[in-house]
């Protein structure tokens, strides 16, 4: 205690998720994401092409298999564009979450030695993937234009759709990255869940195929899987306004509200878990 009786300055708060300063969190997230992004493109002369290669190859294989061998999307308008859009959205989900799970552990050197808002690490992973998605969507737009897709005013929904996807992905990344510090089997578990999400989402197959079998099953698929709702809405808004919107496919706005609630719960739940663990990750690593 000083002679004046009271210590001055700010009391020490210790490490936290947000660091008590939103501006600093955002600056750091942005700087880290830009750095990651740059590094990927510095790495090779063909930077952008390499970045496109992975989703394009996946798309190529799926396209050949599902138009030539198994005619899944035969009578769907612009099936290749629908497929490519779905693949790009899934690539974003897969890339952000796979990188996100291990992000805290991978940044051990930083976390153990520097004080900074811990959330910057998972957020920067999502942001880097978002940059990549932006580039990939340019390719989708070019492909769509070549394929003769008419663009509609509903394109203005794209930011909303991407925003919802980001919320969903960020929630997952916050939750899994914080838990992975303690439970190292989260990563293989997440790989399996990712596979389930891929097949549980109308990417390869159009939702119409499920609807033909059972209308109720299709509704629940879209209601309970936020990613399915997002992909469906993207198809409706971006490629084919005659296709069901997410609300219609889910079986009404009431059901879509459940989807929204699930997304929100994942985001808030992920944040709460992360915030709880953040002060202790440095010592648990």
């Amino acid at each position, binding site marked *: 205690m*000083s002679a004046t009786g009271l210590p001055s300055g700010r009391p*020490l708060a210790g490490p936290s998720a947000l660091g008590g300063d939103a501006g600093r969190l955002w600056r750091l997230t942005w*700087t880290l994401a830009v*750095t990651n992004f740059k590094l990927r493109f510095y790495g090779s002369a063909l930077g952008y092409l390499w970045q496109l290669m992975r989703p394009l190859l996946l798309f190529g294989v799926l396209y050949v298999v599902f138009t030539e061998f198994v005619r899944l999307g035969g009578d769907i308008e612009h099936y290749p564009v629908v497929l490519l859009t779905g693949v790009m959205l899934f690539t974003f989900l897969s890339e952000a979450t796979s990188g996100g799970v291990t992000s805290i552990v991978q940044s051990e050197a930083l976390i*153990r*030695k520097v004080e900074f808002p811990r959330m910057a690490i998972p957020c920067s992973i999502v942001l880097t993937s978002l940059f990549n998605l932006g580039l990939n969507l340019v390719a989708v737009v070019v492909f769509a234009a070549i394929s003769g897709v008419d663009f509609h005013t509903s394109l203005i929904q794209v930011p909303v759709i991407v925003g919802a996807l980001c919320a969903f992905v960020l929630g997952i990344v916050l939750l899994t990255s914080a838990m992975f510090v303690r*439970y190292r089997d989260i990563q293989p578990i997440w790989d399996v869940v990712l596979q389930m999400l891929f097949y549980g989402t109308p990417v390869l197959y159009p939702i119409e195929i499920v609807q033909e079998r059972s209308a109720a099953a299709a509704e629940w698929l879209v209601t309970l899987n936020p990613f399915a709702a997002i992909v469906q809405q993207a198809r409706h808004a971006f490629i084919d306004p005659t296709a069901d919107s997410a609300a219609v496919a889910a079986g009404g706005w009431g059901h879509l509200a459940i989807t929204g609630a699930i997304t929100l719960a994942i985001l808030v739940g992920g944040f709460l878990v992360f915030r709880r663990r953040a002060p202790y990750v440095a*010592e648990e690593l």
Partner: protein
Amino acid sequence: MPPAVSVQSLSKGFRVPSEQVNTLKERVLHPLRGTRGARFEALRDVSFEVEQGEFFGIVGRNGSGKSTLLKCLAGIYRADGGQAWIDGRLSAFIELGVGFNMDLAARDNIRINAVMLGLSTRDARRREDEILEFAGLEQFQDLKIKNYSSGMLVRLGFAIMAHVDADVLLIDEVLAVGDAAFQQKCFDQFNRIRDEGRTVLFVTHDMGAVERYCDRAMLLEHGEMVVLGDAHRVGQEYLRVNFADVETAPEPDPAADEQAVEEEPETDPLRSTDGRAEIVRAWFEDAEGNESSALPHGERCAFAATVRFQAEVEHPLFGVVLQNDRDHTVFAASTAWTQERSGLFRAGDEVTYRVSFDNVFSGGRYFATPAVARRGAGVAWIDRREKFVTALVTSTRTTDAAVDIPYAIDLVRAEARTPAA
């Protein structure tokens, strides 16, 4: 002026799980396992204050809790108990160049590092040139830092540290890397930072550095603060704690230990005694056995001290430590390592012990600290007289090294190539 840092009964423990639960599967199968488990208290009830502009040392051995304390103050660990107040902006440097990305150029690394340390983007940008200039790396600014030499990397790290505008700097052994010349440069930087009125908390186990640069220091041992005071006193205590552990021997006499603590006089900081014996006189001898304070390099010389016992002591240890004028310990001798048992001494006995050695030391002034100690753990000095006598080693050459041991250099010249005729 209010203190720059104020810490009140700070505590920090770590969970040491008896059975580690590492997977979610195990957690689900055994929901209760691993919830208990011992706690390791790394810091216990530590309180201190650091004044504005002070250079404050935090000293302790490995595992004493000094790095935990630093990490709590740096905001990397959350303390379990107690509180701390920091007046002004704080920056911690646990390691130089944390977060450097080897695949990026210096400029990008500076920006990332500065933003991570809390600078705004604009400030970070504005400071890039200053930092590059300070580090003397302008012509290498676009080179990926994986191509930098280690010296360049360190310069870059230091330049960033010096430019983040922190009022309080926490520094942890960053100086452990680099050669003596570089360490000197680091300390020049520290002095400059201090002259600017900033506060520095410096964690180290290098007592020499603490005594030379710190205004005050604090000694931590097993997570508790042992002493807080001027750097020299803390240095003494540190040596004492360290030396005490070297003597591994039978059970200490607890009663005697208590007595020892009680009787320790506080008056002479250079002397530690429990009153059972007294080092009455000490001196150096030259090759002829004559008392001398000038010892020619290369000859067989000796150190001798006379001890008078005031109480009965069985098998005490006799020893001496030689330090040069840079406070480096260059030589330590003790019967602990040569004679198991030195015998029984009764009150009134007087003994002279003589340590003869080949004088391989470089020219310069040396200080001898004779000591008599009891065997046992803990602080067990019977009498120790810090820098009791001094001698000058005379030498015809100046090497600037601590010792000048006999050596030979062979030059083997390769077969001379005769130019073609």
